[in-house]
């Protein structure tokens, strides 16, 4: 049974997802000791060549799988500390992960999820075919996450986070990803059915509905991956010093920032620009 990690990266004009994927892939390869493959599009590969990271990418990724760039009208507000911007968001190809993955057991991660431990290696052989992160765990001591970070809507079902997904190549997983594709293709119908806002396509929501349906219309947060230690995009990755990552955490309802530092802990850093700013220092941890 071949295990491996899979990352999707489609650049847009503001975020260099290829660079993020190179970093998260390199860290996953080092700390989980598994091969890593990248799913991307030709324009992103061209940018990797132009920005001279293609050689490192070829050394890091076992396969670079080039697909058609997904068409999307998706936009999202992305914070970088106190600043914010509306950016296009190309995220609709993840439902193809089952067909694209070259591995029997796949860990699918977002490119802003940085692996600094071997924690996820404990989960490869558990019985469940598809495992998701059941929740985000705010790095702040007081939870700043909103209701819609925990449920898909005001009256909706539990929200899983598709930032980390582990799946086996089997009939159940095939059924799961086919269902995610169906939900994506009929997003407005499912928005009516599950009463969430369809304005922006979210993998978290599509994966949560698929999980809910295939669990017999029940919430099952057991048999999952660990919760994600999450640094929200209003926080800033301030510096990387040796193995220590120092963050400035935004306090609730105030323009104050609290400093904190972590090391040897997997972390979901939603402020992508601050990862890019610290890219060179982070790559030294690989």
């Amino acid at each position, binding site marked *: 049974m071949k295990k491996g990690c899979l990352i999707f990266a489609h650049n847009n004009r503001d975020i260099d997802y290829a660079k993020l994927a190179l970093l998260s892939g390199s860290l996953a390869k080092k700390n989980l000791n598994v091969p890593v493959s990248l799913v991307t599009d030709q324009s992103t590969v061209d940018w990797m060549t132009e920005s001279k990271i293609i050689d490192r990418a070829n050394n890091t990724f076992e396969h670079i799988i080039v697909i058609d760039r997904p068409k999307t009208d998706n936009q999202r507000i992305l914070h970088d500390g106190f600043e914010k911007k509306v950016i296009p968001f190309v995220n609709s190809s993840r439902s193809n992960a089952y067909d694209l993955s070259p591995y029997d057991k796949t860990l699918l991660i977002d490119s802003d999820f940085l692996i600094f431990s071997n924690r996820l290696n404990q989960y490869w052989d*558990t019985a469940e075919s598809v495992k998701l992160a059941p929740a985000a765990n705010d*790095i702040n*001591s007081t939870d700043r996450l909103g209701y819609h970070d925990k449920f898909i809507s005001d009256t909706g079902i539990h929200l899983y986070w598709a930032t980390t997904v582990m799946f086996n190549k089997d009939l159940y997983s095939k059924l799961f990803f086919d269902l995610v594709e169906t939900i994506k293709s009929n997003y407005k119908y499912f928005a009516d059915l599950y009463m969430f806002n369809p304005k922006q396509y979210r993998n978290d929501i599509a994966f949560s509905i698929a999980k809910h349906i295939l669990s017999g219309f029940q919430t099952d947060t057991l*048999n999952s991956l660990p919760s994600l*230690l999450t640094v929200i995009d209003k926080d800033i990755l301030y510096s990387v010093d040796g193995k220590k990552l120092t963050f400035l955490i935004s306090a609730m309802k105030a323009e104050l920032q*609290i400093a*904190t*530092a*972590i090391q040897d802990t997997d972390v979901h850093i939603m402020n992508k620009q601050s990862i890019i700013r610290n890219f060179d220092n982070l790559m030294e941890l690989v």
Partner: protein
Amino acid sequence: MNEPLQQALEFANYRQTFAIQHKTIKEKIDAKLTVGWSGGIFKIDQSLITFVEMLITMGRTADVPLIDSNGNPILIENLENFKTEIFDRYFTACHEYFQEYEKLKKSRSVEALLNI
């Protein structure tokens, strides 16, 4: 801003940093206290260690079903090997937690907390 208020705000800042640092250390230790075994996931704590030790004392060392952290029954073929693994992980993680927490307690400024 008067001095007492300034000092209070600085202390509040220190306490918030302390709380976040404590939380992230616990997160790291929690990860080390989770073990995957025979298709199950076990959270290593005193009750698991005590129960496994008791089973071995009672002579049940092979093919023992245990309930994992997800509530699933998992067949442990060799309980001695399982015990060795959870003992090692527990004491390594607890020593690390103890050392890091001691440093945390002794750090009296935000700068010192960040240098742990």
